[in-house]
């Protein structure tokens, strides 16, 4: 197995906050306050959902099923995802 090139996405699970802009990923686990977890699931961010990162500011901008969400960086740190490649633009 060769080391991934620097621009290549990691294949192991990682926090959503570390995903690159334009990457597509599947939510594996949500670890945050129960109230936030409940809200996230109602918004379509549940274990198994596909999310893509569309921008990074002081918050993370993500797309979930066509819905744009702004998620605080601390919150996005508690969401573990499995990278699925990049979104075709």
């Amino acid at each position, binding site marked *: 197995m060769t080391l991934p090139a620097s621009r290549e996405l990691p294949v192991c699970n990682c926090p959503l906050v570390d995903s690159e802009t334009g990457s597509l990923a599947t939510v594996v686990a949500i670890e*945050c*306050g*129960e*109230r*936030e*977890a*409940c*809200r*996230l*699931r*109602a*918004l*379509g961010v*549940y*274990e*198994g*959902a596909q999310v*893509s990162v*569309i*921008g990074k*500011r*002081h*918050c993370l*901008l993500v*797309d*979930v*099923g*066509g*819905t*744009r*969400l*702004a*998620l*605080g960086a*601390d*919150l996005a740190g508690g969401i573990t995802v499995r990278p699925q490649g990049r*979104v*075709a*633009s």
Partner: protein
Amino acid sequence: MSSTAVSERHTATEPLRVAIIGNPNTGKTTLFNALTGLRQRVGNFAGVTVERVEGGYKMPDGRRIAVLDLPGSYSLSAGSPDEQIALEVLLGRDQAHWRPHVVLVVVDASHLERNLFLASQVCELGLPVVIALNQVDAAAEKGITVDVPALIHEIGVPIVPTVASRGEGVEPLKRAIVTAASLPAPERRFALDHDILAALAPLQVQLEADGFSSSAAAMESLRLLGVSSKEAHLSHVADLPRHLEGARDALRALGLTPQRVEAEARYGWISGVVARTMTRRERSLDTYSDRLDAVALHRLGGPILFVVVMALVFQAVFSWATPLQDLIEVSIASIGRAVGGLLPEGDLRSLVVDGVFAGVGSVLVFLPQIAFLFAFIGVLEQSGYMARAAFLMDRLMRRVGLHGKSFIPMLSGYACAVPGIMATRTIEDPKDRLATIMVVPLMSCSARLPVYTLLIATFVPALPLMPGLDLQGATMLAMYLLGTVTALAVAAVFRATLLRGPVRPMILELPPYRMPAIRSLAISVWQRCQLFLRRAGTVILSLSIILWALATYPHTTPDASLAPAQQQEQQLANSALGRFGHAIEPVVRPLGYDWKIGVSIVASFAAREVFVSTMGTIYGVGGEDDAALRDRLRAETRESGAPAYTPLIAVGLMVFYVYALMCMSTIAVTVREAGGGRLGWQWAGVQFGYMLALAYGAAWLVVVVGRAMGFAT
């Protein structure tokens, strides 16, 4: 209790009750407005200040339909007081006992998956359901088509495609609602594992014993697995925490995470439904909304655009409204004169002209500004920009311990603190909410505007500073900034002391940009204007009459040797109002005010606008035009002969008005919204106290510093 929780059949004599629920940004309120038009009543849900908008319409056969617009909710698991209310109404546990016969769920066709989560919960409540598949036009533009007959088959409820902003599909929807009333309630369309059902059974039995229908109990037992906070409507369910923890333990024993069970079950079913009923053309992420967001959320461009938008709103509110205000002012003055001319000289004429027309008229003038401000806030909200503004402000807000969402109530506070405080209901965290409630009244509301306008126009020269801005404009801007900056600082203090705690992480939907629906917007603005007019017709009218009476009685026999103005002065000084003013003069003396300002301040503790009308009443020049009052104030002298009002005193007075909480309505809203009862009064007391201390202290400081700098007082 149990009788309210079972589905009640609708009888022909009473109106058919329909509750509308849907995710935020689905066009729910626009659809409500399209259904009911102007036949609406705005009130509050019992006990809380969540706005309750009820309306109605008639079918061609004369049947009456009553419609209740429930707050926008992402799910039935209450994160905010808003969603709690929606759930209580749907379960028939709302204190007003308004249980709907039919639930209308508004589903955004572009975001079917997320919207069906709430819809599937509502379908298990044991009530007939109709779905309005809204904004099908916007979905079609995005290449999304929904096979409606197939979706009806999957969900098992009537579904009507609509475009609420254009009124399309509204008539078929009305027919579907009537038909649905006689249809059986839908049932859960997905099966849970036998093991999961067994784990939930004891909890479900307990809920049924408490009066929930078996369907609603099944929905609740599944939903509660992911809910950590206590919900008021379940507070009397015996042993709920024990049964809930029992169910969670049983699920953990199966190797499951209890909090995930509902989302996985519902979305598992929903993704199948969506795959079978929805087709979408190859989708690129780069929609027009994204292209707009590239600017609106740009690191540099975003804040610049934000400032430009805010400046535009204020410029518009303050300059576009002027011609309308002039028109109202002139009309009221001429009506007042005409009516006064019909009455014989004496107390009655004085009451009508100086009391009623002068008092209420000076406040009605602000109707255009209020309408403009609410129209702009409505446009910002409906267009989707408000969420971007909250996103941009989140960084700043977080620094003072608030959430980005606190920005919206604070912005509304520029119009009026009452809707501002009500807008805090979308903030989930109670401490965030309270801190926001505490500072919203520091935002300079439209009621302060008459005070600022009068004082600036009278005492601040229109010295040009730079193109488009003179000293008068800059003074006005400074007052708004002073309030805003102080609000942020005070919020930081509250979050570090009484309301200490972590700031909740940001979760914010950025809805697609959309053209505002003009008709719906107009209805909302009209509602606001009605509330304002009602206030002008009640609180302000009665205060005006009381003040007039206090300034008129007891009568003094005028000293005929004095000039008419001095005779009037003598009358005022000896009236009940004058005596009271002299009694309180020592309190306002350190601020450089005389007893007349003192009286006006005291009178305006009920509502700030009353300051101007009181000055008008005291000087007997209200109802004519502002210029008369301005001239009178400039000419006013003290006993020593020095001018009673100087620019320094005017600035001090404005600063006092920036800070002081002088509004009965705000106090009432704070009491209810901060928890009601004793707790609510305590918070309202804290709010009133700190603002009064701030007002007095700052006004005093202005005068002391000003004097030291050589300005005259």
